[in-house]
């Protein structure tokens, strides 16, 4: 019998994030340029499992994805039961930079989706020298809210079913059922109030319109890729954002929604591979 083992390796690290020590779970695969992946709100690092099993990527990149505290296999900080989870811009940036330090990542490429796509804009603005390139998936400086987030966390509604049903429409109708439902399963498994807490960052704390001056895309290239079926962060939202950042490169992905890496990995790689190749070529030329 052939035993099939994926190349993904998962481990834990202790990370100091603001006032808390957090036990953070991360997975990785591959060798080369570090590529740090940031999952969407209310989900976890499993969204990037297909990238980590793609030899066209892992031959050149060390792909790393971590579960934010409160998500996936990363516990909330000690004393979580005494507080309401609310992700802020500062906490999100501190988390990413702390994980980079803990894993000794030297100027990684960071790629984030949705809230991760929003935060890479802030990283480009305030920490561009710490990254060799930034990739925002479903990324915009702002987008119009489309539902009341109180529905996400109330005792008389099943939170997992609620979160999954709400985001189900963000997946393109073309995406294979297996990947659609796997993406939704992740949303069904989130802790109570965690998706809502992430959206505090998205909806309340991180309206980045007019705040992103000084981004130097010569020093740190910025790529923005958005699915045409994403009605939360629309292609127009991404294009409007890019129009304020000199040198930002936009790609609109056909037949893809809000979760490109997990809802349709085969389609997504056709858009991602040229971006990664451009980043790798730039590194080669710089040597």
């Amino acid at each position, binding site marked *: 019998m052939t035993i099939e083992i994926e190349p993904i390796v998962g481990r834990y690290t202790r990370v100091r994030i603001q006032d808390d020590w957090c036990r953070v779970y991360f997975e990785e695969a591959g060798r080369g340029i570090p590529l740090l992946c940031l999952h969407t709100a209310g989900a976890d690092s499993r969204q990037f499992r297909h990238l980590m099993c793609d030899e066209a990527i892992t031959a050149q990149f060390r792909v790393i994805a971590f579960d934010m505290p409160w998500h996936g296999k990363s516990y909330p900080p000690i004393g979580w039961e005494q507080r309401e989870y609310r992700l802020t811009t500062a906490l999100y940036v501190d988390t990413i930079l702390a994980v980079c330090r803990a894993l000794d990542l030297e100027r990684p490429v960071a790629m984030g989706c949705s809230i991760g796509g929003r935060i890479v804009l802030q990283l480009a603005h305030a920490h561009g020298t710490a990254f060799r390139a930034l990739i925002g998936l479903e990324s915009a400086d702002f987008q119009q809210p489309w539902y009341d987030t109180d*529905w996400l966390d109330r005792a008389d*509604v099943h939170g997992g*079913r609620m979160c*999954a049903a*709400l985001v189900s429409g963000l997946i393109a109708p073309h995406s294979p059922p297996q990947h659609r439902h796997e993406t939704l399963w992740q949303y069904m498994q989130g802790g109570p109030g965690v998706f809502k807490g992430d959206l505090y960052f998205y909806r309340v704390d991180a309206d980045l319109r007019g705040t992103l001056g000084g981004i130097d895309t010569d020093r740190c290239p910025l790529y923005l890729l958005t699915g045409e079926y994403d*009605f939360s962060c629309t292609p127009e939202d991404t294009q409007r954002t890019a129009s304020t950042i000199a040198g930002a490169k936009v790609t609109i992905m056909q037949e893809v929604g809000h979760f490109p890496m997990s809802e349709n990995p085969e389609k997504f790689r056709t858009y991602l591979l040229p971006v990664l190749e451009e980043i790798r070529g730039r590194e080669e030329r710089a040597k």
Partner: protein
Amino acid sequence: MNQASAAMHEANALCARFERIVKQRANGDRLRVEQPRTLSAVCMIEIGGVAALLHIERGAIVNCTRELALLTEWDFAVRGSCAAWRALWQPLPPPGWHDLFALAKRGEMRFEGRLHPFMAHLQYFKDLLALPRSGSERSAPQ
């Protein structure tokens, strides 16, 4: 046929299509539509200017009718334009026309009334209201 009567004709045709498919498939097609055992509600589905009323008892649709008496009560309503339902029911709806909330965001769909049963069983209602999706090729809504 003038514009108003053509619109009403289409609304009636779309609503009849919905009623027919719900009666044929909603209670039997467990692969596509989860049966929410705890759900009992009266739902108004409005297509253009034409309404259908769904009576759901313990997860089963016990009645679907377009014959609404004056002052008929319902728990919640999902109201959409003809363009919204026509686009939503294409096999591959165009971007922004492919989901109830995408349609709401663009002003083509509204949710009204006591929303708890709708939201607590949201995937069920999304699947139920997408049942007529079949047939034609993808094209932009008119």
